[in-house]
Each structure stands twice: as structure tokens, then as C-alpha cells.
């Protein structure tokens, strides 16, 4: 029976499931145990599982991500929490040069089954150092898996998948979606990794989005439907493994592509989707591939400025219109 819960509660439920399922799963990060997590994601876990399974670390992201790797290599299944995705840059060496490399560089003799949980994106009034959407950095790093759940159900299912597979997985949640509730299927088996999802079918244009831009894309599609534009909306969900097949099949049908993400435009992962479509779906394309993204600025803090850069449903809708009426 699906249960209705908020995105952040679904994270909590998945973590409870993870710690329950395997004794060798440990959870650590800053303020995650005794204080129940800065956003409540780990609420009740310390009480339930004790200090041997979940504990608070010093403010040492490089230290504890490296610790996660060493623990994973030697047989545990750690989950480490980076409080804001922005802080991943402090520990980028452990992510790029260590965690992503070890399986390949040992010819498969070591594995690193660990999960790095983080949450990303802007929120009103937050400064540039608390607003990054860094998925493109991770997606360009071979060896990492990358999950960006956009719904409460996916927050639950994708995190469960992440803790189950034998690869290092970054699960980047969307802070702005934490309060949003949805039906969560707590009674289904763990899903296999990967797979984009067609959330809405339509013959006119393909809209590919992930994370916070998924509800924005759906909202745009609703608006557009009233105008007679029938958009197909795809939630990409996993950037690695990348389900390009679903995207390609859709574009082959619609002949038009709009990709939407919150990260800034240049070098964003939208470029990768656009580039593949421009290669693999070239003959089917009926209008230029378009991207919706923040312009190339660090995120400003003032809401009036944020509103001038953060992509929303209205920008998706505008871009779709331009693409369809091209």
C-alpha cells in the first residue's frame, strides 16, 4: 500500500530501510545522529540503531568521504552525508580521484559500494555557497553513479537502489522539494538502477528534466496543453547510468527537444543531452535543440535577483513555445 509522505520523510524511510536491511551499513556526516539531521532526514535513526551504526563526524568532508571509501573497500556499505552539495567541493579529491577511480584502477579487484547523500539547489535568500546544482561535475566523472530524485517516491526508491548496488552512488536530492508530499510505494521490491521515466506523453515536443525542474516541466506541460501544445515530459532520474534510449525514442517521435536544469547553462548536463540528440537523432530533429538553465552567474542571494536567474515552469513553457513555433 503506498503511503503519502513528504520527500524528506521518504528519505528517512529509505535510510531506515537501509540500516535495517544490512548490519554492515553505517551512516555518518555532520549533525546526523544525535541532532537527527539538519533537515530531519535521519530523524530517529540514532535512537533506533545506536552509535555503532550512525554517528556524527567532525566538519571534515574530505576525511569522512575518504573514510567511507576505505570502509566500502574493506566490506562495509557506508552512507555518508554532505550537508549541502556545495560542500562537496571541499572533498572533491576524494570523490574524483579516489572514489570514482578505485574499481577501474584496480581492474575490478576493489569495489566501492558507498552512497554519498547530499541535497542541492537554490532556496530563497541562500548565498552562492549554498545554492549549487553540481550534477554536471559528477556526471563528467567516470566511475560515479548519479541519482537525482524528483518525487517522494523516487527519493525512496532511488536511495534504496543506491545503497544496494556495488558502485559508488551520489544521491543528490532537491532541497526545495523536501516539503512536497507524494505517494510512496513502500511495499515494492528494490528497483534496478537507472531508467528515465516518461511522466506525460505528447507528440509535439520532448521536455527532459531532472530534480526540481521536473515539477516545473510538468506545470509547463499543463499550461501548454491548454494552448494545444502536447509536450512529452521525461524525468531523467539517473544521470549515470544515463537512459538515453528513452530520450532518443521520444525525440525521434516529437522531433523537438527542450532540456531543463537549474544549474547554469554552459557546461551543464543539458549540453550532453543536447549533444547526443544532435548526433543520434539528427534526422528526426525538426527544430533547434533548446536548453533552459540558469545563466552563467554564481547564485545571487536577493530573491529579486534569484527570480531573474532561476529557471521555472514559465521559462520551460516559453522555450517550448519557441521550439514548437520555430
Amino acid at each position: 500500500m503506498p503511503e503519502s509522505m513528504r520527500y524528506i520523510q521518504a528519505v528517512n524511510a529509505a535510510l531506515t530501510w537501509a540500516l535495517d536491511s544490512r548490519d554492515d551499513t553505517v551512516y555518518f556526516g555532520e549533525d546526523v545522529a544525535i541532532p537527527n539531521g539538519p533537515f530531519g532526514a535521519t530523524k530517529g535513526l540514532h535512537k533506533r540503531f545506536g552509535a555503532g551504526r550512525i554517528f556524527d563526524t567532525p566538519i571534515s568532508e574530505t576525511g569522512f568521504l575518504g573514510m567511507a571509501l576505505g570502509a566500502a573497500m574493506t566490506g562495509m556499505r557506508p552512507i555518508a552525508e554532505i550537508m549541502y552539495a556545495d560542500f562537496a567541493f571541499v572533498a572533491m579529491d576524494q570523490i574524483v580521484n579516489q572514489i570514482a577511480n578505485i574499481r577501474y584502477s584496480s581492474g575490478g579487484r576493489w569495489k566501492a559500494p558507498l552512497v554519498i547523500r547530499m541535497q542541492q539547489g537554490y532556496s530563497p535568500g541562500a548565498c552562492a555557497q549554498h545554492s549549487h546544482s553540481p550534477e554536471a561535475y559528477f556526471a563528467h566523472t567516470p566511475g560515479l553513479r548519479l541519482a537525482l530524485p524528483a518525487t517522494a517516491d523516487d527519493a525512496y526508491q532511488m536511495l534504496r537502489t543506491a545503497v544496494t548496488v556495488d558502485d559508488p552512488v551520489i544521491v543528490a536530492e532537491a532541497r526545495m522539494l523536501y516539503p512536497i508530499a507524494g505517494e510512496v510505494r513502500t511495499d515494492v521490491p528494490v528497483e534496478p538502477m537507472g531508467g528515465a521515466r516518461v511522466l506525460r506523453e505528447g507528440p509535439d515536443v520532448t521536455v527532459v528534466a531532472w530534480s526540481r525542474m521536473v515539477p516545473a516541466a510538468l506545470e509547463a506541460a499543463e499550461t501548454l496543453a491548454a494552448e494545444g501544445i502536447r509536450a512529452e515530459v521525461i524525468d531523467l532520474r539517473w544521470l549515470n547510468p544515463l537512459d538515453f534510449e528513452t530520450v532518443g525514442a521520444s525525440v525521434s517521435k516529437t522531433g523537438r527537444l527542450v532540456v531543463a536544469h537549474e544549474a547554469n547553462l554552459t557546461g551543464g548536463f543539458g549540453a550532453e543531452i543536447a549533444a547526443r540528440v544532435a548526433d543520434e537523432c539528427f534526422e528526426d530533429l525538426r527544430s533547434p535543440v533548446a536548453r533552459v538553465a540558469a545563466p552563467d552567474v554564481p547564485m545571487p542571494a536577493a530573491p529579486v535577483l534569484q527570480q531573474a536567474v532561476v529557471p521555472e515552469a514559465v521559462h520551460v513553457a516559453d522555450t517550448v513555445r519557441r521550439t514548437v513555433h520555430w
Partner: protein
Amino acid sequence: MDLPDTYRAMARIRRFEERLMALKESGEIPGSIHLCNGQEAIPVGACGVLREDDYVSATYRGHGWAIARGVGLAALFAEMMGRDSPISGGRAASPYLSDASRNFIGENSIVGAGVPIAAGAALTAKHRGHGAVSVVSIGDGAMNQGNVHEALNLAAVLDLPMVLVVENNVYSEMSRIEDMVRVHRLSERAAGYGIPGTVVDGNDVDAVTAAMAQAVGRAREGSGPSLVEAMTERLVGHYSGDAQQYRPAGEVAAAKEREPLARIRQAADAELTARLDTIEAEIAAEIDAAVTAARAIPFPDPATVTEHVHA
């Protein structure tokens, strides 16, 4: 500074933070805020021994440093309201603001990251040779970040005129420092860099002043960096939305007996008390005026949003 002036400097910070919290609650401050209530003696004592050409850096909990450094209250309120303030134009807000005109290098929202930057300001000071000093404040929890380690050693090796002030308020967010290190005092780490480390009562503005005078003087004369650990307590939550359930009963109440303003009040005779009351009234007016002035500053023009990314 004499006592009333010190009181004024500290009370200005306290009342600023209190008003800020009220503005946050009434919806006028969009982002989250990290207040320094109870820690005012540290920036006031430190900035009191500084010259105009010295450099100051702090953290997201740095409003007190900005104010002690002479950054205007209206500008600060405006910045945090998301207005086009003359200091950071609404781009930085509460946790990342700076004021180039006051050599206030700024706050930083990445734990510890301001220390290497402060070392850079110290490098400039050393290069120029005019005896300027770079003072940087961090929290207790920040001592476990690699950036602080690297910067301290770098400053030591290069004899940089830098003073690291560790404001030990015994918590990093919701975690106790005693669970995060295995040393009694963080300043014990100074020895590992071959620099002096001292502990001072951070609620005693005179003690802070004395310790900072020594450390800053040392740096000014070219003898290199040092570390001052100032013991203090947060009278409020880590940030505006912190319910503080993790704090033992009575902890905040006890801290209120020891905090820098209460301490002066407790020792004050009737005459001084009257004087302090007057100061409080003046500050209240100053804060009111600053809020009014801040509200008169317009919001940034969205058309400028892509400016200033590059030169």
C-alpha cells in the same frame, strides 16, 4: 576604549542581532541567519586593537565582526533584506557579506575557507611592509577542516602577519566540540605549527583586548602568526530556525549570567547603570534609524543580475 564605549560597541551588535531576528520572524529577511548573541566581546575586543589598514575576515556568524569593523548598520540590514546594499549589492546576504571599503574581506559560508584567504591578505600586508595585520575568525568546529590546517601552517612558514581567532562556543551547529576533538583546548594545536596559542575568556572584553593586542602586536612587528582561542557561549540557536532541543536544560540560562553585557551590568554601580541605560536608548534609536534607512534602499535591479561575473 573605556567601559561605556565597549559596552556600546557590544550592545550595538546584540541589539542589531535581536532586531534582525525580529525582522526574520516578521518575514523581512529571506535567507537564514546565524546570530552571534553572547559572542560580542570577541569582535569588539579584537577590532579595538586594529588599524584602518588591517584586514578582517569572519564566518556566516560574522555580523558582529562587520559591525565592530565599522560597517554601517543600514547597509548590513539592507544586505540581509535582499536589497541593493552598498556593501554587497544584495548578492551575498547574511552569511557571505563583505565591505571592501572597510577592509572587511568578508564572511564565508564554507567552514574554514576564510583562513587561507586571510593568509593571502596577510601576504599582501607582508609584501607592502607597512605593518598591517590580517585577523580572521572561525568557530571551534572549523578547526577540524583541512583548509584551516593548511592555512595555519602556511602562515607559520611564511611568517605572515595573521591572527586566527577561534571563537569556541562549544557547539558546531548541534554537535558539541568535546565530541569532535580529543584535546581539551583547540589552541593546543598551535604548537604543531610552531606558533603561539592562547586561551582567553571570550566573554571578557578586556581579556580579549589584551590577548589580541599581544597577538596583533607580534604580527605587526613581523614575528608571524598566532592563534587566540576565545571561550564563549551562544545565547541563541545555530541559525534562525534552530529549536535547540539538543541543549541541556539550564545551559542557556547559565550562559546568560556570564555573557559580556550581563557581566558589565552585574558589576555596575547605579551611576554606570544609568549611563548604560542611556547608551541602550541611543542604540535603540540608532537601530531604528538603520532599519528605516535600510528599507529606503531599493531592491537590486533584476536587469543587473548578470553583471559583475567578470571584470
